Each structure stands twice: as structure tokens, then as C-alpha cells.
């Protein structure tokens, strides 16, 4: 028993020591990696454009035809946006954790869906 307990204590000491060591190493590594400068990319331009198309409708539409065209455009843009979003809607719960940059603003909105004693359906693990 005491032999076994000694072994246990040894494993504990070495095990926890190495875990802290490994994560310290990861800290250093990540600090180094994160210090690498971010290159700006401009790939995000397309979707906002489509959203503008939805938001666009101004009241001062002069004439029926113009009005109609706008309505159709808005409808199509909306449908396309939805079509584009639908695959993401199928994405599982765990992956929703990505748009961090919105931080505080999200805070207000997400407060509706309380999560304390409940997690979203079907999250797998």
C-alpha cells in the first residue's frame, strides 16, 4: 500500500509538473506565434454588399417600375443571403464560438438564450 502510495505521489508530482511545463511551453509558443503581424485581407467585401442591397430601399422611389425593380432586387438578395447562410445554419452548436470580435454587442443579444442548465440540442461529444 505505502509502496503503491509512493508510486502514486511520484506520478502526481511528475505528472502535474509536466502538465504545467507543457502548458507553459504552449504559452510561450502562442505568445510568439500571436506576435506575428496580421496581414489584412479583403475577402469579406462581397456579403456586406449583398446586405446593403437588402437595406437599400429608400422611400423616395419615383415611379412604379423603379419600385418594382427594387422590391424584386431586395427579394432576390434576401433569398440569396438566406441560401448562402443555410449551410452555416446546419453547422453544429460547438462551432458558433467564432465571431469574437463583436464582443460586448453580442453580450446583450445572447442574453436571451439562457444556457445555465441546458445546452443546445445535439451537440456531439
Amino acid at each position, binding site marked *: *500500500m505505502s509502496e*503503491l*502510495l509512493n*508510486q*502514486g*505521489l511520484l*506520478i*502526481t508530482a*511528475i*505528472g*502535474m509538473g*509536466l*502538465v*504545467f511545463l*507543457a*502548458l*507553459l*511551453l*504552449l*504559452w*510561450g*509558443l*502562442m*505568445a510568439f*506565434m*500571436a506576435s*506575428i*503581424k*496580421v*496581414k489584412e*485581407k479583403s475577402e469579406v467585401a462581397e456579403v456586406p454588399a449583398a446586405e446593403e442591397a437588402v437595406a437599400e430601399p429608400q422611400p423616395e422611389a419615383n415611379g412604379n417600375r423603379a419600385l418594382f425593380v427594387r422590391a424584386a432586387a431586395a427579394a432576390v438578395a434576401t433569398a440569396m443571403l438566406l441560401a448562402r447562410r443555410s449551410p452555416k445554419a*446546419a*453547422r*453544429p452548436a*460547438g*462551432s458558433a*464560438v*467564432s465571431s*469574437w*470580435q463583436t*464582443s*460586448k454587442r*453580442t*453580450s446583450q443579444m*445572447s*442574453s436571451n438564450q*439562457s*444556457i*445555465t*442548465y*441546458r*445546452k443546445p*440540442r*445535439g*451537440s*456531439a*461529444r
Partner: protein
Amino acid sequence: MDFSQLFIEISKGFSTFTWQNGVMIAAGLVLIALAVLKEYEPVLLLPIGFGAILANLGMTTEHGMFKALYDAGIVTELFPLVIFIGVGAMIDFRPLLAMPKMALLGAAGQFGIYGALLLAILLGFPLNQAASIGVIGAIDGPTAIFVTSKLAPEILAPVTVAAYSYMSLIPVIQIPVMKLLTTRKERLIRMDYAAKPVNDGVVIAFPIVVTVIVSLLAPDAAPLIATLMLGNLLRESGVVERLSKTAQNELINIATLFLGLTIGATMTGASFLTGKTLLILGLGFLAFVIDTVAGLMFGKLMSVVTGGKINPLIGACGISAFPMAGRLAAQVAKEEDFDNFILMHAMGANTAGQLGSVIAGGLLLALTLGMV
């Protein structure tokens, strides 16, 4: 014609049924009820519960379908590892990369492993079983299955059931401990989130670098960290969307369904209903509590060291249990102060806990194999 033989054949369903089978079927029903009514980890608890019912109606892992699944997915380790590919494809390491110091919390949340291991030794378990009981404290299903099936497959059922059941009960376990160990003032601490965008190249390189480093440090953890990081690489590389989606959906769903059923099918009355099982379940519970306490204490330490810039609640996320623990800490902070948004920090600590759990599991495996 032999009527008695015929009668035996027809009535064997009843004649072989024992009260232990009845108890285990009831236990299976409880797991299913938790899954359906409380929605605690239903994708796992429901198959485990149903598998437990089937095992006690004769469909054990010793023959037929469940033997095939056990051999194909548990003995080969494929089920837990395939699940890890899917989990990896769901993890976003950006919050952790933006706040690297959170990594330490992922180490602090592993004390429960060794606490449970030492207690198990004191209670008379041999080292290999004690280590397997300890790994419940990794609070990560695939890690627990992987380590236990190598060290002590004879207690795979109770260890796995404890790991997944308590994981599904995380809110019930953690919230009281959080409120007990932190002051209201501490819970009110706000944290700045320097919205430092992380280089895409770094996000892609991260899983590869972690795989190499962890595999060198803890080779026995290599399959776990490799599959987790493979999934993450599929996700972040951006060029294999179809593989990433398959990993997050079909692959993980199939593996989860069959893993749950098969684990459940190991829960036969004769093997499960022992005093040992009760001890394992109790020690597993303690492992969860010790993890949380250690994590919170380390969070308080970091809070003091940084002059109050860290909300100790995020210490409780270092235990792994991704992503529930992270959401939970954020929720508790918000309950105290509606405008206190610490979710990003909590998820950073939570992903660090995921890494820490895998590393700790691998080291535990190596150390135990080096001892026995």
C-alpha cells in the same frame, strides 16, 4: 421431439433474467430520462442508456452486433479518435491564441486526476485501475476511454459512464462550487478583451505545431492530440471544407452513436453492479469537484498576481468539459452583472483545458505504464 428443450429455448428471455438486469435497465432508463427531459448531453446519454438496457436483455459485447462494434471501434480506438477529429473541427483556438496566458488554467484544471488517483490507491485499487479512475478527472470522454481501454479495460464501463454522466451534470456540480469559493466582488471583475486579430497563418500552423510538441513530450497522448488537431487543421486550413464538414457531421455522428451504444452494452448487471462501481462513481465525482476547486483557486491566484485583472471564475473552465464549462462560467458572471461579458476569456481557458486534459491523460498513461 423434445418439448422441454423447446420450452427452454422459448423461455430463455425470462429464465436468464436477473434482478441485476432489472436494476441496470432502470439505470438505463434514468440515463435516457436525463437525456430526453433534461437534455443533458443527449447524443451520448441516450445511446448509452439504450445500450445498457439492451445489454441486460442479452445483447452484450460478447457476441453479435455489439461484439462487432466493440472490436471495430473500441479495441481499435477508432470511435473515440474519430470523435476527436470532429471535436477538433468544432474548436476555435483564436480566443486562446489572443490570450496565451490562459494556457496555465488548462494545467490547473487537471489536479482532480491525481487527487482521484491517490484516493483510489488509498481505497485499495491497483495502480492501473487507480490511474483509470483518475482519468475521469480529465473530464473528457475520448481521453477517458482511450486511457482506460489501455490500462484497465475491465473498468471501462463505470469509468466512461462516470465521465459522461458527470460531464452532463456539469452545471449542477460546478455552480455551487463556484459560488462557494468566489466572492461576489471577484465574480464582478470585468476583463478587457484586447480585440487582437490573430494571423490566419498562425491559426493554421497552431494545430500542427501543437501536434509535434505534445507528441514528443507525451507520445502516449499522440493519437488523441493528433486527431483533435487534425480536425482543427481541416477546419482552419479553409481548403478542405468538405472533409471538415464530414468530420463535424457524419463521422462524429456515426462514431458517437455507436460509441454510446457499445459503452452502454458493456454495462451488464453482473459486471456493473458491484461495490467497486459505486466507489468508482464516487471517486469520479470527487475528481470533478477537485478539478473545479483547483481551477478556481488558480484563477484566484492569477487574479491576485495580475492585480485583479482576472475574474477567477474562468479558472473553472480549465477542467475541459468543452464547451459547457466555458459557457457556464460566462453565464455565472453575467448573472452577477448583466453587462459582464467574459465568454471569450472563458472559452480561451476552456480550450486550454481541452489541451491540458489530453496532455495530462497521455502523461498519466506513460507514467503508469512505466510503473507497472
